């Protein structure tokens, strides 16, 4: 597989370490989070395999293109619009989480409006870029940010205050029946692959995808989930861990760089996870923008000879996200994102039926062409 494919998966996984996923997991720490995680790794890897296989069969073609060819208009337009909304919400969750985080820990005096505005403005510009440029940006920013995130993980694992006994205790709860909320939030980590709906445009060459790649993805995701769930427990203890709102922030604040200019690792963590969050929102909203382009034929809208079509969604995105962030509080955000994740575990496996449908239609179309 092209290396850009892994970025899509990786970012969705890593971005959610800071978002509500660990909070949901730790909230259910006694009611089957561990078994849900194991189940999610299996289910997620299977989903990734199916989705990737499907898109490899159609190199360089996006999902809306495929749907346009195979389905009728009454289905196509509302469905793509629904997808656009969904991706918007996915980006919005990350955005809201990070705005709250920055207010809590970095600049408490700043209005929420201002902090979310800067994130929105910086991302919106990127959403209009061409798809391949989005991927180049992802690669560059990952290159800067990722070594530091690995450093944080290294610091966490090598720290003396990490009590493995707590971790072992937590692991004992594996015999509980898998919790649905924990499962859905873990499952969400694997959904980076669905960005191929649009990003498949970039992968014009035929890729090969075999068990080696699947193992690699499974390994990375297991490692990531393990770190996400067990490291906060190792630092903060097992009892009452469900009370923490931002378990990873608390964890990273217990790490120190004794001899560096910046002593508290929290700030490194925050500022560089901002990069990951930035990329995550960028990917989601870029996909959302592209879906909207398909639904409304935005490329064709002109005003006095200028193509203004692609700028039309911008005010809606800014307005809607500012409005929603203003209304939400952290508790509601946690609950709604939990609800959002829950719907996804139904939705994306169901889409596979649609894929089978598309595949058969495309096969017929091909055969007819040959005849």
């Amino acid at each position, binding site marked *: 597989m092209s290396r850009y494919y892994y970025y899509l998966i990786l970012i969705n996984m890593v971005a959610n370490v800071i978002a509500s996923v660990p909070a949901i997991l730790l909230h259910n720490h006694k009611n089957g989070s561990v078994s849900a995680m194991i189940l999610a790794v299996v289910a997620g890897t299977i989903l990734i395999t199916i989705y990737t296989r499907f898109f490899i069969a159609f190199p360089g073609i996006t999902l809306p293109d495929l749907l346009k060819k195979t389905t009728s208009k009454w289905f196509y337009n509302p469905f793509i619009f629904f997808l656009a909304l969904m991706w918007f919400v996915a980006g919005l969750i990350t955005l809201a989480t990070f705005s709250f985080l920055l207010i809590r820990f*970095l*600049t408490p005096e700043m209005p929420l409006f201002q902090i979310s505005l800067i994130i929105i403005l*910086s991302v919106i510009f990127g959403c209009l870029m061409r798809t391949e440029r989005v991927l180049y940006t992802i690669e560059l920013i990952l290159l800067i940010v990722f070594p530091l995130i690995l450093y944080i993980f290294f610091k966490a694992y090598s720290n003396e205050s990490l009590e493995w006994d707590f971790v072992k205790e937590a692991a004992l709860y594996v015999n509980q029946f898998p919790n649905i909320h924990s499962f859905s939030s873990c499952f969400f980590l694997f959904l980076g692959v669905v960005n191929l709906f649009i990003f498949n445009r970039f992968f014009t060459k035929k890729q090969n995808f075999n068990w080696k790649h699947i193992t690699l993805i499974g390994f990375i995701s297991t490692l990531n989930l393990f770190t996400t769930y067990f490291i906060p427990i190792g630092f903060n203890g097992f009892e009452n861990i469900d009370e923490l709102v931002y378990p990873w922030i608390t964890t990273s604040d217990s790490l120190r760089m004794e001899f560096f200019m910046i002593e*508290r690792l929290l700030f490194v963590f925050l500022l560089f996870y901002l990069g990951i969050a930035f990329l995550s929102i960028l990917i989601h909203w870029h996909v959302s923008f592209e879906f909207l382009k398909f639904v409304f034929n935005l490329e064709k809208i002109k005003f006095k000879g200028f193509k203004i079509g692609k700028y039309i969604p911008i005010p809606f995105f800014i307005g809607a996200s500012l409005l929603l962030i203003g209304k939400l509080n952290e508790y509601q955000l946690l609950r709604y994102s939990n609800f959002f994740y829950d719907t996804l575990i139904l939705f994306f496996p169901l889409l596979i039926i649609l894929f089978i449908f598309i595949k058969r239609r495309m096969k017929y179309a091909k055969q007819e062409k040959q005849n």
Partner: protein
Amino acid sequence: MSSLETINWINEQFKNTNELVQKNLEYENKHILLFYIKSLINSEMLQKLIIKPFFEMSSEEQFNLYLQALPQFQEVQSKEQVHLEIMNGNILIVIQNEFYLLDFKLAKNDKVNSTSVETTIHGSQLALSDNLMTNINVIRSNYHQASLSVEYFVKGEVNQHKVAVIYDKEKVKNDVLDIIRKRLQKVDKQLITSTTQLGNLINDSRFSLFPQMIMTERPDRIVYNLAGGKVILLVDGNPQSIATPVVFFDFMTTMEDNYHTLFISLFLKILRYAGLFLSLLLPALYVGVTSFTPELFRTELALTVAGSRVGVPFSSFIEVLFMLFFMELLLEASIRLPKAVSATATTVGGLILGTAVTEASLASNIMVIIVSAVAISTFVIPVNEMAFSIRVVRLLLIIITSVFGLAGLVLGFFVLIMYLVNLDSFGETYLKIYTLSKNRKTTEEKT
């Protein structure tokens, strides 16, 4: 065309100048007519190659053949060509109703300069000259390939400067060449006086912050770029060339990188990138840390910074802008000033102003250190044009940081990366990670 008519036409064209010389030579039933502009031609050569043989040869036939055998000989196609070539230092000879042009141009600007903008320790110390033909000669004698092609254009409606487009036919990307040709046709400026000006005219994005062509005066760099498949543009009367398409990493390499051993050049490269990041981020980081998040640094450092700001009446934002403003003034002044005075300017500006400002507690000591560190690290960026861009971007980052804090700085930096990725230089992505692959495109300089 009849000779009399043409001669009249030429006289008509040049009636507004008194520099056109018309010379009638007659000797032993030989007869020629010479037209030239006295100040443009080499009269010594004229005497040696035309006038002397004229009086020595026995017949007009023989002299005619002799003229055609001269290396400076040029066939006449049209009247307009005659007009143009006379302006370019040719001599028009009329013999037996035939028109010949001979290139006797006198060029006093063909001395090769020594490098002044891109100085290096290793490698050639010679740059280009002001003369186009000398420059092409320099390039050709450094790049021995039959596929090296030169195309000439005449640009600038008033001053009619010659522009040369040089490329290696086997390595260049044809679509880049097409874009350049097309955009060169569109240029309709009255005066073209410099290569970089021409570069700005053929770039479509006028409002771009970053240079989309790289300016160089070093023949080795030109050759390096040619071998990498780039197109070189030269303008007559200009000791600089521009190369295109470029990627961001081109601006961060010097020719010396290839002349050092691997580890030395790696070290220098790291130093250079560190300088780039420092000069971009340091002032904005100072604003972010002192005004928004003082707890970012370890306690001792935070206290030192706060302690040095005791008594400074401004917010950090004003302090930084105030000091940077004077630094930029100093930089500009030292470019414009005569060499003899510029040393005084640096002393007054750097030493006296620096100490006086802290003593008057208009800026903290740490601020002075930061400003000087920033100034020095800006000079580490090897290509001047990039340094200018960085100076502007730095200001933007300071403004963003002073409104949005450290998060603004980080996001602003990401937006900068995104902006660079989104830029195009003649169809080439400006910034992306290049990896080695088998069918690698040859256009990028970076290896």
